[in-house]
């Protein structure tokens, strides 16, 4: 199973005037690639806080008391804001609850969609360059190590060549990309002109044509196919002539002459052809050119050139390079594997060490020596960074810090609690009316914290054991191709410049994708001109603009009515499949998630009380809170009195000592008020935190309203009728 995001023991509090509100209290969950995780709970249960913590957009008065959020080899809670900036929006994106307040009312929606694309592009190009260089460096050192020191000169030369033609290819690619961008820009602009004339908006035709002449000149490029290039020159001449026949100022009731209309339509067609012509493979051509070959496409065509260049590249360079590269990869992998095997007994030792007693300095220095060994055991040539090993050092240090800080604060907290309780009792004994409560003591369980330290080590150990077991199946060639693809992708990212027109075209495509009709017209409208459902679609388009891996939907349909809600849910589901998104779906309405979610986490008072697949939660709910949620919503066959959940969620300044739901729970037992229930495992996929699952607990029946409904649902699906 491929986990894309892991949240471990996350705790978030907020400082307020009334005291510290414990919004999220120790939650853990995993998000798998391409799956949907739904987080369900009442307002104030901490679901939005969790999602904001993932994106690093918590309010200023928040304190992250502990935990980790692992994504792509990084702990999102401990990286710098600069690093977070690269992830936020690009890799992890969010759809907010209220589309009206998440859009800027005085900016046209087109600009709002393209804003992020234009803003982030520059930073991405720089980043791509760095990634390219650093991976190449690692590859080089591994290749040398694999071949022995004698080959150093040869390999250095080869890597230099590789870098050389990859860079050269980007130099060729850049003007080509510019030309393509201009072609798109012209196409968009001409379509705009035609649209404006049709809608009688009286454009300044002469000015537009002058622009086209300039832009058409920029489209000319050595890699445009011959036939297109010829037409291009022809168009350019016509354009120059045509523009003189139009007056210098914008006029009323502009009509286009037949010849101009034909010219414009021809332009659109030609630009379409140019945009869709086969793309020269600059990676190959770069080498071709580096070796001084003639790489013009005159009389040859792009495809032929591509083939020639490929043959030349393979024969003279690539085959040999790949061979060496494979050796390097194998060397790196085996080296890492060897180190992993060596590390295992050390980890075992670390577990023993941390079970014993130690001072903070000792623990830290032990952790340092241990963590220093870990990087050697990581295969640096892996493209998908594995989170556990990369974040081992920070995780371990955090766990140790937490342990020692708890050792310090626990006695203080005990003293405070004792003092306040004594004061309160004294006042009550005097017969005074006491209207304040004592904040329950929040002391840490030291044993548990110690276990956490050990757990960090165990996590890595388990991971490495699994990897060592799977080492036989390692596919060197697949990895080699992966790496070359990575280089290619990064090289073209370096030269991928987003212009305004390209961003506009992309935005219009996105708007079409999320189901907005007439996107070209609506591109220039303001948010107030859209209905609620359409606005939410715009917000989704903005979230998708950067092509994220993870999409967080925070109550995306709460403000919408049934039909629109169904449409938006379908849209999110469809986009999820198309783009292989992983979705975190936050809602208070269990009914909505039945067709969305693969897994569901039910949250109450900052904790996950039940976790399971959609099947588990709907057909076999175990926690009384889940029962209450299910039975408080009517479905189409409900006719009895609704089982409302009495009361309101607890005040999280004074989180209850035992099970937080006990006060509102008619099945609550004595222990529920005294001790927090642990997560009981029901099946591999299903867990719930309720004492009712303890072997000694009395047997409790699921409320009739739910069993009836489940029976009804089963009957329906058996009958095949809905």
């Amino acid at each position, binding site marked *: 199973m491929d986990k894309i995001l892991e949240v471990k023991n996350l705790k978030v509090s907020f400082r307020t005037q009334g005291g510290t509100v414990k919004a999220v209290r120790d939650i853990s969950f995993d998000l798998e690639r391409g799956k949907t995780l739904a987080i369900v709970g009442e307002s104030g249960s901490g679901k939005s806080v969790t999602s904001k913590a993932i994106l690093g957009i918590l309010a200023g008065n928040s304190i992250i008391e502990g935990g980790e959020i692992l994504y792509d080899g990084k702990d999102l809670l401990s990286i710098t804001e600069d690093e977070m900036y690269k992830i936020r929006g690009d890799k992890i994106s969010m759809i907010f609850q209220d589309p009206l307040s998440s859009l800027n009312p005085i900016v046209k929606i087109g600009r709002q969609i393209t804003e992020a694309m234009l803003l982030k592009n520059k930073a991405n190009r720089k980043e791509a360059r760095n990634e390219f260089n650093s991976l190449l460096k690692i590859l080089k050192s591994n290749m040398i190590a694999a071949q022995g020191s004698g080959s150093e000169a040869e390999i250095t030369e080869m890597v230099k060549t590789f870098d050389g033609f990859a860079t050269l290819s980007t130099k060729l690619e850049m003007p080509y990309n510019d030309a393509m961008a201009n072609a798109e820009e012209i196409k968009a602009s001409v379509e705009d002109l035609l649209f404006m004339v049709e809608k009688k908006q009286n454009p300044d035709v002469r000015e537009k044509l002058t622009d086209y002449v300039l832009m058409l000149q920029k489209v000319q490029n050595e890699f445009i196919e011959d036939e297109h290039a010829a037409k291009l020159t022809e168009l350019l001449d016509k354009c120059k002539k045509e523009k003189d026949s139009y007056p210098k100022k914008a006029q009323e009731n502009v009509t286009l002459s037949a010849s101009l209309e034909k010219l414009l339509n021809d332009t659109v067609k030609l630009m379409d052809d140019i945009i869709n012509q086969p793309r020269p493979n600059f990676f190959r051509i770069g080498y071709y050119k580096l070796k001084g070959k003639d790489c013009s496409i005159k009389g040859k065509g792009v495809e032929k050139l591509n083939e020639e260049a490929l043959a030349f590249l393979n024969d003279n360079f690539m085959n040999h390079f790949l061979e060496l590269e494979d050796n390097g990869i194998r060397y790196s992998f085996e080296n890492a594997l060897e180190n992993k095997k060596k590390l295992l007994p050390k980890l075992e030792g670390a577990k023993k060490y941390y079970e014993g007693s130690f001072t903070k300095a000792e623990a830290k220095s032990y952790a340092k020596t241990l963590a220093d060994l870990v990087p050697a055991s990581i295969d640096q040539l892996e493209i998908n960074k594995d989170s556990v090993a990369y974040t081992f050092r920070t995780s371990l240090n955090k766990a140790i810090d937490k342990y020692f800080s708890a050792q310090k604060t626990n006695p203080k907290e005990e003293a405070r609690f004792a003092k306040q309780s004594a004061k309160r009792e004294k006042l009550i004994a005097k017969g005074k009316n006491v209207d304040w409560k004592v904040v329950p003591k929040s002391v840490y369980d030291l044993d548990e914290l110690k276990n956490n330290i050990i757990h960090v080590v165990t996590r890595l150990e388990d991971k490495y054991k699994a990897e060592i077991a799977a080492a036989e199946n390692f596919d060197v060639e697949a990895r080699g191709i992966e790496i070359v693809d990575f280089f290619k992708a990064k090289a073209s990212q370096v030269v991928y410049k987003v212009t305004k027109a390209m961003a506009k075209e992309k935005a219009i495509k996105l708007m079409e994708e999320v189901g907005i009709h007439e996107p070209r017209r609506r591109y220039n409208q303001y948010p107030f001109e859209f209905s609620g459902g359409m606005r939410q679609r715009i917000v989704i388009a903005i979230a998708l603009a950067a092509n994220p891996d993870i999409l967080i939907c925070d109550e995306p349909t709460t403000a919408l*009515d*049934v039909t629109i*809600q169904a449409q938006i849910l379908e849209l999110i589901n469809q986009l999820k499949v198309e783009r292989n998104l992983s979705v975190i779906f936050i809602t208070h309405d*269990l009914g909505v998630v*039945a067709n969305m979610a693969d897994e569901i986490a039910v949250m109450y008072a900052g904790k996950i009380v039940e976790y399971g697949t959609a099947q588990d939660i709907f057909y076999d709910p175990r926690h009384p809170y889940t029962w209450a949620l*299910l039975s408080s919503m009517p479905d*189409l066959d409900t006719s009895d009195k*609704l089982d409302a959940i009495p009361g309101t969620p607890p005040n999280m300044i004074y989180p209850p000592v035992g099970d937080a739901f006990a006060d509102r729970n008619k099945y609550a037992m004595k222990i529920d008020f005294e001790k927090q229930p642990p997560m009981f495992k029901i099946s591999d996929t299903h867990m719930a935190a309720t004492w009712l699952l303890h072997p000694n607990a009395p047997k409790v029946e699921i409320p009739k309203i739910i069993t009836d409904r489940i029976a009804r649902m089963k009957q329906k699906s058996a009958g095949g009728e*809905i």
Partner: protein
Amino acid sequence: MEDKNQEVLLRVENLCQYFGPTKAVDGVSFDIKKGEVFGLVGESGCGKTTTGRSIIKIYDITSGNIYFENQRICAGTGSYKLAIENAKAEAKKAVKELDEDSKKNPSNADANNKKKAEIKANLDKTIAENKAQIKSAVFDHKNCDKEYSKKLVAEVNERYKKAMAEAGNDSAKLAELKKKYKDELRVAKNTRLITKIQMIFQDPIASLNPRMTVREIIAEGLVINGIRDKEFIDEKVYEILEMVGLVREHAGRYPHEFSGGQRQRIGIARSVIMRPDLLIADEPISALDVSIQAQVINLLNDLREKLGLTILFIAHDLSVVKYFSDRIGVMYFGNMVELASSDELFAHPLHPYTRSLLSAIPLPDPDAEKNRVRITYNPIAEHDYTVDKPSMREVVPGHFVYCNDAEEARYREELGK
């Protein structure tokens, strides 16, 4: 099924509410019977909230009539004005034709003049009729409250005349009676018919004044009505607070100190204290959490039994509407497209829009959800109303659908199967 002879509490006839060129509500008619919950559903912007607000006279309606307890409380003049305009235009056209005819054939001039006079007389008659209607509509619209309070004042007068006569010469008793009489008279004078209809609003945060205490908010209606007895007011407020599941101590607090569900309870208390006959609940649960929604629905159900309320329940959550309402009206773009008892509507939805609406309801059943097919509604493709014009028709007793002849026949056939 429901009783046919049940008394009608509210009758809406051809209600039209235009805002400039926007026809928010366009010819909606329905009855609400005493003691029932009437659900109004439809997507946002279809005019269901506007209908509710028109009934309680927040807007002046464009045309149509609304009767409450057989008394016309709202009347629009738009239709009469339109009738006058149309008649004038028609007459003008006819006269013009006659004039042209006279020019061509001078021999017909006399006959034509006679016809012209006839047309003019007819026109005058129509105008006079419609103007009378307008006058009566405007009068009712403005004065229904006055008439109601007049009636109440007369009642009070009569009662106290009797009581005073009985009291005879007992001056102490007489003075007390006089004081009471004065108070009651003031209340009677201030009472309006429209206070018998009360409304609960969608957003419990926005609809409560943050600078008033809960006591002030709830008692505001009584105070406006002219009741000055503080003890009486407090008692009433406490009684209502307990009725809606809050406690006495809450009376002195401000709205921001309450949770969403409690705020909605305050909103309900404010509307119920006037002892209304009809309660308009405009999406009272949409802004609440699912668990709190059930509390509010249960509360409304209790109050309905206790106070004998009739409720117009406006919502877009169909499962809740189905659970709570006796009859349901489905609205689409300012029109009522289907009206039936809730069981009938969900068992046999006829209008394609209703079907699409029902197919969009999310169910708490993952297996069924995976296979759910949503029906989309496209009015242009669905209906051909070029020749055969649609209207509201009773397909089976109690089940009305907006359709034309061909569709009606088809629906009947479907139901027959």
